């Protein structure tokens, strides 16, 4: 192998959630009733890569599977099919030493820091616990290690003995970031990590993410419904709709000329400061239920360009002339 494998490779990963039949339904099925397990394809045959120090943005609306994909990459959840590789090695889901080491290298930062921080633990313990347990640093150096990490994220180490509720929203998000960094990860999955913050605080945290990336060479999978934030932070953007990737490409190309009709709709409907006195004329239709997705291209019921083929055939993610990928039958015409 001449080339270095990417840090993260997601290969044809699917994640299905099914609701088990209850007793009555199982008996009914035995008796010949037509009862089926209901299955949600939260993530449906998705592949993506994250290169060394690269920031990949993952955008889409609720129910598109972006958070599930994030959890699969972070190893919190196991794919139903396909595999996630870290530096060419499949991420194992066992208790082996190798699996633990890999798990440490991929960390996750959540949306609501208050939900993900133990309210009964002091901040110093929250940040240091992972590092202590996994012996990331010798046990005598834990305290100084925690101090270093706290300073890195802009928190005052003298506040170590406070509880999470004594911090503001922005500070709590910094604690979540510090906890992730304390085990020296190489990849950080950020799931809506700035979504619940006020505009002025959001800017501070986005700047922190960018500074940490430059200082530590971190790779990001940056999941957000906020396209403006993703445009700012990501090198490459992946757009998902109902469990599938519909478009992927370098941020600038994708934002300058979105190819997929869904991406186009998403871009045109993001409110922007420069768009004044708008006559709102949005795409119609709701996001369909993932339990019962439309046939063919999932987007066809809402798509202004849909034709017969879109209803029948699932469009493949194909490479376009400018190097990006899009899953739309219109590109074949």
């Amino acid at each position, binding site marked *: 192998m001449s080339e270095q494998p990417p840090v993260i490779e997601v290969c044809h990963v699917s994640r299905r959630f099914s609701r088990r039949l209850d007793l009555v339904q199982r008996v009914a099925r035995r008796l010949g009733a037509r009862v089926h397990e209901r299955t949600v394809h939260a993530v449906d045959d998705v592949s993506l890569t994250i290169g060394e120090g690269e920031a990949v943005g993952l955008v889409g*609306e609720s129910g598109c599977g972006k958070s599930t994909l994030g959890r699969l990459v972070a190893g919190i959840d196991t794919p139903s099919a396909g595999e996630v590789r870290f530096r060419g090695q499949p991420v194992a889901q066992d208790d082996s030493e190798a699996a633990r080491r890999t798990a440490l290298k991929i960390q996750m930062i959540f949306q609501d820091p208050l939900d993900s921080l133990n309210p009964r633990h002091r901040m110093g313990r929250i940040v240091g616990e992972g590092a202590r347990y996994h012996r990331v640093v010798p046990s005598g150096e834990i305290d100084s290690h925690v101090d270093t990490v706290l300073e890195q994220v802009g928190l005052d180490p003298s506040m170590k003995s406070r509880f999470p509720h004594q911090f503001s929203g922005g500070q709590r998000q910094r604690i979540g970031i510090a906890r992730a960094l304390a085990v020296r990860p190489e990849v950080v999955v950020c799931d809506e990590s700035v979504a619940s913050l006020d505009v*002025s605080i959001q800017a501070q945290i986005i700047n922190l993410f960018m500074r940490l990336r430059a200082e530590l060479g971190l790779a990001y999978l940056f999941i957000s419904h906020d396209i403006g934030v993703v445009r700012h932070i990501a090198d490459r953007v992946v757009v998902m709709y109902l469990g599938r990737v519909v478009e992927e490409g370098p941020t600038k190309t994708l934002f300058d000329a979105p190819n997929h009709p869904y991406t186009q709709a998403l871009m045109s409907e993001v409110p922007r400061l420069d768009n004044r006195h708008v006559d*709102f004329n949005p795409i119609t239709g709701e996001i369909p239920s993932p339990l019962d997705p439309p046939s063919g291209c999932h987007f066809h019921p809402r798509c202004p360009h849909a034709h017969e083929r879109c209803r029948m055939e699932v469009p493949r993610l194909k490479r376009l002339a400018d190097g990006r990928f899009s899953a739309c039958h219109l590109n074949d015409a």
Partner: protein
Amino acid sequence: MVAPASMPTLEVEGLETRFITRRGPVPAIRDISLTVNKGEIVGLVGESGSGKSVTGLSIMGLIEAPGEVSAGKVLLNGEDLRKVSRRRLRQLRGDRIAMVFQDPMMTLNPVLRIRTQMVEAIHAHDQSVGAEAARQRCRDALAQVGIPSPEERLDAYPHQFSGGMRQRVAIAIALLNRPDLIIADEPTTALDVTIQAQILAVVQSLCREHGTALIWITHDLSVVAGLAERIYVMYGGCVVEQGGVDAVLDRPLHPYTDGLIRSVPWHNEPGRPLNQIRGMVPPLDRMPKGCRFWPRCDRATEGCRAPVALDEIRTGQRARCIHPLVESR
């Protein structure tokens, strides 16, 4: 009471609401004056703790103990809502003035069918409406906000709707009696972009067609940019800037407004550090004296520690600042 054509739908003057705490009364909003004309969409923008929601609730008369509206006038079509009887206030609320919340489940009762709740809203204000006529009005209201097959959906329960559809139902209920004013508090914040755009379209056409006045409360400058004609920017319980949407967003006078606009990612070169406002919003009981923003402001001087008035600095554009951003930028 028929209001003269020139009278604004809503006029708020010097509104103050405070909360009684163990350490004495703490004002949450102070000296709030707003005007909303017939059919006009006005944006009320601010971060958490700026007092924007308290302003909405105070106008509606929905502040409960330990809070109290302690000063000011709220004139709806010339009638002061702070002086009218409770009975009259109940008559006006839901009829002439309505509110839409961020979480539609604040409005909807989870155990009642949509129809029951909507008919109740009609009958509360006019008992003479017959059952069939009421049903017809509910159906029309649902159709108006873009709910497909409204006839069947009337019999559904709130949990059978998606978030976006539920918010439409809440808006439909607010619209039932054709109010003169709707106060919408972050109604699309929890919704996806494409659904948000649909709701904005509905709201915009309603204001245009029926002359409903609207106050859109949000933390998101970008939504207001597209929707509103005029905006009020709040910080620390005060209006710090107000004016036409183009004036305020293109030529902000107050350093806080300017900072907010500059920190929006779309306004920054991708990959470069965002402009940020340092520090954070102080808690209500520890608001600095004078200009609330001075500890975070680069232009602050000694003079900022004295009370600052909301002065008209350009025609139609006011700012509460003694060092406004004029020319010298």
